[in-house]
């Protein structure tokens, strides 16, 4: 218990640093998730429409997913420099796979008979997508998004590595200056942020699904 008290004391002592890194962390994660969503969902829809493209695109995103972040930072400095650019790039290529794949699986997994029925009633391809496929695929897409959000928030600790700040600063600083409390403080905040964001999306998901059903 005494240890957690000392962590709490440290958090109040260094509150400007903690506040600053917390905001940076939220900023980086939000921006990354935004990019991932704006690219990932349309890309998932696109490959569900063109099954020939599906395998290569999912394959490419899987390969990107396996590149170690640190290696990426090392060889991207001449191109992307340091700071938020390489960080966003790294988070982007990591987050793409879960969302693209879930969107694709969600849409292609919609019961064929429903689609045939809608077609039979004269739905255009666009109506089909917006009124039938997307709403029915939504739970799977949102599940993908939640994975992306939690993963992005925790992976965003590596932002500190390359000069983009964030809660990783507390974690790395704690390790390099033998200050365990600082490391624990950073880790707790990352965990709280990730769990909080996931919970929030859970609520959004429930509301959305209710809306669609009615």
């Amino acid at each position, binding site marked *: 218990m005494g240890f957690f008290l000392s962590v709490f004391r440290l958090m109040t002592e260094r509150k400007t640093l903690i506040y600053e890194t917390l905001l940076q962390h939220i900023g980086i994660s939000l921006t990354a998730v935004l*990019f991932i969503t704006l690219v990932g969902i349309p*890309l998932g829809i696109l490959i569900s429409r063109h099954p020939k493209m599906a395998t290569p695109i999912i394959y490419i995103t899987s390969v990107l997913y396996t590149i170690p972040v640190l290696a990426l930072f090392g060889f991207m400095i001449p191109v992307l*420099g*340091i700071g938020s650019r390489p960080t966003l790039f790294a988070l982007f290529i990591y987050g793409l796979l879960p969302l693209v794949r879930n969107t694709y699986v969600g849409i292609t997994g919609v019961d064929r008979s429903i689609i045939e029925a809608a077609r039979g009633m004269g739905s255009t391809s666009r109506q089909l997508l917006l009124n039938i496929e997307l709403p029915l695929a939504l739970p799977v897409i949102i599940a993908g998004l939640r994975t992306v959000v939690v993963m992005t928030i925790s992976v965003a600790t590596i932002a500190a590595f390359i000069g983009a700040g964030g809660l990783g*600063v507390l974690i790395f600083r704690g390790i*390099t*200056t033998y*200050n365990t409390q600082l490391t624990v403080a950073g880790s707790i905040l990352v965990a709280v942020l990730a769990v909080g964001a996931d919970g929030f999306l859970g609520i959004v998901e429930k509301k959305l699904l209710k809306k669609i059903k009615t």
Partner: protein
Amino acid sequence: MKMNFFKLIPFILVLFMMGSLVLNTAGNTLDRVILASKPFTESYILTEIMVLLLQHDTNLDVEYKNIEGGTTSILHPAILQGEIDIYPEYTGTAWQDVLKKENIVSDPQELFNLVQAEYEEQFQLVWLPTFGFNDTFTLAVKADLAEKLNIKTYSDLAKVSNQLIFGAEPDFFERKDGFDNLVETYGFNFKNTKQMAIALKYPAILSGEVDVINAFSTDGLLKRYDMIILQDDKNFFPSYLAAPVVRKSVLELHPEVGDSLKKLAGLIDENLMIDMNYQVDEEKKDPQIVAREFLTNQGLIE
């Protein structure tokens, strides 16, 4: 035809992203200097000292960029790119890791002069005068063990090395002035070797998992764990004088930066550096506070 819209979205967005990335590059304004540190206590303190002094002495916008992965392999390309303007570097590191020199120069001042000349010619980077201390590698053992086995020098250690376990960070096993050549020079024959992160070496020696570690000669924790530094009686390790490395164009544009940082020349000796490191690592002081106290004591800031 309707699908074209959806097809285009990802491509438009990727273009948009790339565009914003390119635009970001123009972010470094003329009246700003950006400093960075290597990821360990001593470097944090040195950088905080430079930041505070520059804020005090100049009208520039002084920024300290936290790059926790900021080893030389990250910071050197970054300073070449102009992403950062100033960081503290060590002569030995520059000589071997950046300039890729094979030969070992044993005179510290000569090494500094060589590095300074090469940096200016090759990279347009300037080495300002050194802070004053030499943070070289050394070998350390617990004081009681040293006494029991009667070890004072590396050569003494070689005689009993077959009873001892050696621990160091993975880098040390890769370096030219690292494990392999060290073993060859002194004829060490350790019972076992263990690789661990820098921050874990002291806990490991405390718990008895290792007996001998490589250490930095200015490490504050040597003081805490009651360890002694052995004497490098064959002068194996090169010198690592620390000094600010600054982009030449910054010094030309803002001569006051050089004037300000030169005030730090020779002010910090090994004992003072050990003491400041100790305050951060052991007394858990914020490096910025330690830096501020140093500058106030020296009368460089109010």
